[in-house]
């Protein structure tokens, strides 16, 4: 061996620690990189082997009209088809005990394709036996020996099997359905299959096959999931399609020919019946019309008669009135006449009386005249006497006045008084005389008046007599006239009586006519009703017949022409899901391991730079001795690269087993794929080892380059230790002055070796980031359950019921029976294929009857902003679904049930959701989109059962399942625990991450500390010489380490957050959305893990420090 090489190998044995740390770090980096990278291929190869071993079909042919043995033969004739197997299946509901499941029932499977593997029990031997898929039994109670009942959920007339009850005799696995959780869709029930079973083919009532499986040797040789496989498969598929184009019309003819003929006959028959019926109806109608006219005429006549009668009646009434009037007039006339007569008689009497009176008065007057004349005579006498008396008195007075003048007045007083008295008496008699004369004048006048009055009265009486005589004549004339009128009246009365009798006869006749008419009318109406009924019946019958024909037509049209559908394995749920899972691991394998690789490379760079620096003198010597730069670089290359190679290759082989094993083991809980394969793909190993080695070679080159540029002489001089510098912190006296002496030193040291500081921080940050990713991944996965079932789902569970029932009330009653406070609302859940852009996704469309209650059950809100959205405002889609579809609010997505019919829905909200995909619609919107009211099939309820209280749940389920309309009861508590179980798989993967990150952290820190110590070995030795205790020396060194670890840790937490978010979004499976939050405790854990490893490394390093020999260390410079 040449001295040069010897030197290299001796170098390795001398610096075992360094070499080993390079080796180890490469091993971990490469191991993780290659291991995770290999996993995808290993998974696919394991699956490929499993599929080949179990002869999984390559292509599957379905036809809308079923397939026949001839089709089978034709398929086998295709070049490249090496095996065919025809099978029948039907989707039914399976009852086991109280439970109900959706199952796909297959006819017995052949041994050539889709090999089933009976894992326990035995194959079908007798009638009425069946096999059940093993993965189903894991989660239910229908074990071997149990009896199950099948039920058809469609409205087909005929049950597809010849029997309904089976006994389970064995459990099987089939390569067709590798997924334990996902079993595919069906068009019955809630659309998602729970189980598979196999029964004897003879039990199927249909005689055509449902599907034919095709197998090809060429494809078997190609690797499943590979591009080669896909290409070959597509070619074969094309051939099959071509055959389909030929075979399908033949089948169409077989099935549809007969149906079409029948249809034509039916149509003709209908046409005939139609015309005949119509004619009959028309005749009846004409007859009715006639009747109606007659009735109308009669009615008119009757009305005329009525009018005539009414007129007659009025006339009669008038006549009667006239007669009565005439009679009254007659009577009045008579009475008047009589009264007149009486008056006449009376006035005669009066006249006579008045004559008598006048005569008497005349006599009286004459007497008065005589008396008056006598009175006049007496008066004339009295006047004469008076005149005498006055003369006498005047003489006396003369005497007296004499006397008085003579004798005095007193002496004559008496005679005066006497005279006065006589004068007075004379005056009185004069007044009496005047009176008498006045009275005489009055009476004279009265007598003249009386005479005049009598003359007048006589005149009047005379006139009265004259009048009386005239009246008498008038009376006699009137009497004659009255007699005439009486006769006339009697004649008129007679006529009236006659007319009246005639009128009464007319009335009677009219009434008979009316009665007759109403009878005719009634008859007519009956006839009309009969006619109308006839029309309705006729129309209904025709419509029925037409509908039947239209249905038949549609059926034929719908059936269209038989068409072949060619499916590949990609259409198999488990098969394609497994591929995407493998691809997901592949995705993780791009960023994650590169991180490892980078950290490893960085650490190696630090190590090698240090090494080169340490060996300046040696390099100088070599150079001085005439070795070329290349040769010198070679020395370090060989050192580092051999470490990288040994470590890398070892790590690659180890990693290629460890990581795929852990991941496949984890996935084996979800897929029935056994016998793991570990591939040591040279390309992968060369790539991972090569990239690591190359990275290291480059670092070595760069480490050496600087040294090699110097002259041998300068190299051989010891490189002055890096000068000390004041650090920024010193400019802040407040802090600096308060730091203790050693803290100051550490502070300055930290910043002295900036590169090492950077490397250490990056290295530690990387490790912290990786472990935070591990913890964060664990958080986000375990969060799903709580987020989903505590923050979003707030109801107790839901029950599925027979959607055709009209007795939903009984279910409500039962719900309230358990708890009267139960809140509930109905919904329709159906799995649809949603499409947006080019993305397709299976999504549960949920139409809700009462949006308010539903929103109190399911908290509908946007995840980040926590903003509530409402399904009352439009369609709301779950977050992951929106993300997978690439749809945003306002986009329109298409819904279909796999057929050609699609509906389009506009997204108006996106809601937080972690399990499954939903599209929530309110009733109105559903109706608008699908053109019919939703056919509700489940009831969401909240009855207070929240946790996994099995006693309450059992009691509740018992009540509900007694209701024959209730198909199944699903409690959220149960779903929660089953999801938790599924997710525990991921714990293993995260553990791998954390442990790997930890291992890396350990190695990185160890290495960096090592570098740190060797770099400063003189300092350390000096301290020792100065009499520092071991603890003081350690703390001098490790104080920095701890500060760096903390810095790295903090940076790593930030970095880790982003790494974790990246990993979460790439690693999560389509069905689930992982939580997006890392718990604060995880940050603490990740930080503590890093710090813990840092302390562990310090502990290890303490020993190394102890061992440092002062003499050796200080001597080295000489």
């Amino acid at each position, binding site marked *: 061996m040449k001295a040069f090489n010897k030197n290299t190998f001796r170098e390795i044995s001398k610096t075992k620690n360094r070499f080993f740390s390079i080796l180890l770090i490469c091993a971990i980096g490469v191991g993780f990189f290659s291991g995770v990278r290999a996993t995808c291929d290993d998974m696919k190869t394991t699956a490929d082997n499993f599929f080949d071993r179990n002869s999984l079909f390559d292509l599957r042919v379905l036809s809308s009209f079923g397939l026949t043995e001839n089709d089978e033969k034709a398929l086998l004739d295709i070049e490249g088809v090496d095996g065919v197997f025809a099978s029948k299946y039907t989707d039914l509901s399976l009852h086991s005990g109280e439970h109900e499941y959706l199952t796909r029932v297959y006819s017995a499977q052949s041994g050539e394709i889709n090999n089933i593997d009976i894992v326990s029990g035995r194959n079908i031997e007798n009638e009425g036996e069946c096999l059940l898929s093993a993965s189903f039994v894991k989660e239910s109670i229908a074990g071997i020996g149990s009896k199950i009942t099948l039920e058809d959920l469609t409205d087909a007339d005929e049950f597809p099997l010849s029997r309904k009850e089976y006994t389970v005799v064995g459990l099987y696995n089939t390569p067709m359905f590798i997924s334990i959780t996902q079993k595919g869709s069906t068009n019955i029930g809630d659309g998602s299959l729970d189980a598979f079973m196999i029964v004897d083919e003879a039990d199927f009532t249909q005689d055509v096959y449902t599907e034919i499986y095709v197998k090809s040797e060429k494809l078997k040789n190609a690797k499943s999931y590979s591009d080669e496989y896909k290409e070959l498969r597509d070619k074969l598929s094309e051939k099959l399609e071509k055959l389909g184009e030929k075979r399908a019309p033949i089948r169409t003819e077989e099935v549809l020919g007969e149906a079409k003929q029948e249809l034509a006959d039916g149509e003709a028959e209908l046409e005939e019946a139609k015309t005949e019926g119509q004619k009959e109806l028309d005749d009846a109608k004409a007859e009715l019309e006639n009747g109606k006219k007659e009735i109308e005429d009669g009615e008119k006549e009757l009305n005329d008669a009525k009018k005539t009668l009414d007129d007659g009646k009025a006339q009669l009434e008038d006549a009667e009135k006239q007669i009565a009037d005439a009679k009254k007039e007659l009577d009045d006339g008579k009475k008047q006449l009589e009264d007149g007569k009486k008056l006449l008689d009376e006035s005669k009497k009066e006249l006579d009386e008045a004559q008598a009176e006048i005569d008497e008065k005349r006599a009286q007057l004459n007497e008065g005249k005589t008396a008056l004349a006598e009175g006049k005579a007496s008066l004339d006498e009295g006047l004469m006497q008076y005149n005498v008396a006055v003369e006498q008195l005047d003489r006396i007075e003369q005497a007296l006045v004499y006397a008085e003048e003579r004798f005095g007045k007193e002496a004559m007083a008496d005679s005066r008084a006497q005279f006065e008295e006589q004068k007075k008496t004379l005056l009185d008699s004069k007044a009496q005389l005047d009176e008498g004369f006045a009275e005489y004048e009055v009476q004279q006048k009265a007598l003249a008046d009386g005479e005049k009055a009598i003359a007048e009265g006589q005149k009047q009486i005379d006139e009265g007599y004259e009048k009386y005589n005239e009246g008498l004549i008038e009376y006699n004339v009137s009497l004659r006239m009255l007699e005439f009128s009486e006769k006339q009246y009697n004649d008129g009365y007679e006529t009236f009586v006659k007319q009246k009798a005639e009128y009464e006869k007319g009335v009677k006749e009219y009434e008979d006519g009316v009665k007759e008419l109403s009878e005719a009318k009634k008859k007519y109406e009956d006839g009309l009703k009969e006619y109308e009924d006839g029309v309705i019946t006729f129309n209904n019958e025709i419509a029925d017949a037409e509908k039947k024909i239209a249905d038949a037509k549609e059926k034929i049209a719908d059936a269209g022409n038989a068409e072949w559908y060619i499916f590949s394995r990609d259409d198999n749920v488990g098969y394609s899901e497994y591929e995407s899972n493998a691809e997901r691991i592949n995705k993780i394998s791009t960023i994650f391991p590169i991180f490892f690789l980078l950290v490893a490379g960085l650490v190696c760079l630090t190590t090698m730079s240090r090494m080169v620096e340490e060996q300046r003198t040696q390099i100088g010597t070599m150079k001085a001795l005439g070795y070329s730069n290349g040769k010198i670089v070679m020395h370090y290359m060989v050192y580092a690269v051999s470490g990288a190679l040994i470590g890398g290759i070892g790590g690659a082989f180890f990693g290629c087993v460890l990581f795929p094993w852990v991941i496949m083991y984890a996935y084996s809980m979800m897929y029935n794929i056994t016998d793991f394969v570990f591939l040591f793909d040279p390309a992968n190993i060369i790539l991972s080892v090569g990239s690591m080695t190359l990275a290291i070679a480059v670092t070595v080159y760069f480490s050496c380059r600087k040294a090699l540029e110097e002259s041998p002489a300068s190299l051989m001089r*010891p490189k*002055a*230790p*890096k*000068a*000390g*510098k004041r650090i920024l912190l010193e400019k802040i006296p407040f802090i600096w002055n308060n730091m203790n*002496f050693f803290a*100051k*030193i550490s502070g*300055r*040291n930290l910043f*002295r070796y900036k590169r090492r500081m950077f490397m250490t921080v990056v290295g530690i940050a990387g490790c912290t980031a990786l472990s935070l990713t591990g913890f964060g991944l664990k958080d986000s996965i375990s969060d799903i359950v709580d987020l989903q079932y505590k923050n979003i789902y707030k109801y107790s569970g839901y029950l599925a019921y027979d959607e055709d029932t009209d007795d939903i009330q009984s279910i409500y009653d039962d719900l309230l029976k358990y708890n009267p406070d139960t809140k509930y609302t109905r919904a329709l859940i159906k799995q649809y294929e949603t499409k947006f852009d080019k993305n397709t996704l299976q999504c549960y469309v949920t139409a809700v009857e009462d949006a308010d209650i539903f929103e109190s059950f399911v908290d509908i809100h946007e995840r980040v902003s926590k903003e509530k959205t409402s399904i009352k405002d439009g369609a709301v889609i779950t977050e992951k679904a929106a993300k997978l579809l690439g749809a945003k609010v306002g986009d329109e997505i298409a819904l279909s049930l796999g057929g050609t019919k699609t509906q389009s829905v506009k997204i108006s909200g996106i809601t937080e959701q972690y399990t499954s995909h939903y599209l929530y619609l309110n009733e109105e919107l559903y109706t608008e989109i699908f053109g019919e009211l939703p056919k509700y099939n489940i009831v969401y309820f909240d009855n207070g059962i929240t946790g996994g209280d099995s006693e309450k749940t059992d009691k509740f389920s018992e009540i509900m399942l007694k209701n024959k309309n209730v198909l199944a009861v699903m409690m959220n508590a149960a779903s929660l625990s089953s999801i938790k179980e599924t997710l525990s798989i991921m714990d293993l993967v995260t553990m791998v991450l954390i442990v790997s990150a930890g291992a890396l952290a350990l190695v990185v820190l160890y290495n960096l500390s090592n570098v740190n110590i060797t770099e400063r070995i*003189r*300092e350390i*030795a*000096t*301290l*020792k*010489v*100065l*009499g*520092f*205790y*071991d603890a003081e020396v350690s703390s001098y060194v490790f104080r920095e380490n701890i500060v760096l670890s903390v810095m790295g840790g903090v940076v790593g937490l930030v970095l880790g957050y982003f790494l974790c978010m990246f990993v979460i979004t790439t690693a999560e499976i389509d069905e689930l959305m992982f939580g997006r939050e890392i718990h604060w405790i995880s940050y603490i854990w990740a930080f503590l893990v890093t710090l813990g490893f840092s302390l562990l490394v310090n502990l290890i390093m303490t020993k190394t420090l102890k061992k440092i020999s*002062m*003499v050796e260390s*200080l*001597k080295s*410079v*000489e």
Partner: protein
Amino acid sequence: MSFVSLKDVYKRYKVGEVTINASDGMTFDIEKGELAVIVGPSGSGKTTVLNMLGGMDTCDEGVISVDGARISGYNRKQLTLYRRFEIGFIFQFYNLLPNLTAKENVEIAGQTKKDYIPSEEILEKVGLGERINNFPAQLSGGEQQRVSIARALAKKPKLLLCDEPTGALDYNTGKMILKLLQDTCRNDGMTVILVTHNTAITPMADRVIKIKNSKVDDIQINEKPTPVEEIEW
């Protein structure tokens, strides 16, 4: 008993199959307050002796005692305490901590002992009062060595051990350093042991111990040591 005494001290290194005697039964004494120079050619074992004396290395056989304490039997812990409290070391390459200023380099030693000379004072004494806040890289070799001496003296050691203190210095500077050491010995009564391959400086010592092939070849006592200033080489 002398202040420093070595008796039949052996130190053996095993390199592969071969055993090398770095100290082959050395015996010598040094009195308190003396400036002793141990002189010998390269690889003669003089540094080994100094290391053993300084508690940096242990002997395989024989007795080493300092100030009456038998340090050859010390365990690790005792040796550390010994170095900490009783020994001052001066190296050819100074071994200052590059990241500390002159003052701090002195302080770091002082920190180990309660009773120490304040760094400013001691630096003043070695003639570096002006530059106490400079980093080693900003100081010349001689200045660095002064810092080194100040560091050693700060904790008032019983014994000052110097390993080729002038080996990396030019003639004049070297002389100044030696003068400093001599002064320290004379003025402070410090016992100084100086290791060198340079026989020319032996006249400055009170006692010269010549070593050859890991053995003491000759011990000379200079009754009248020459002041450093007068020595030429």
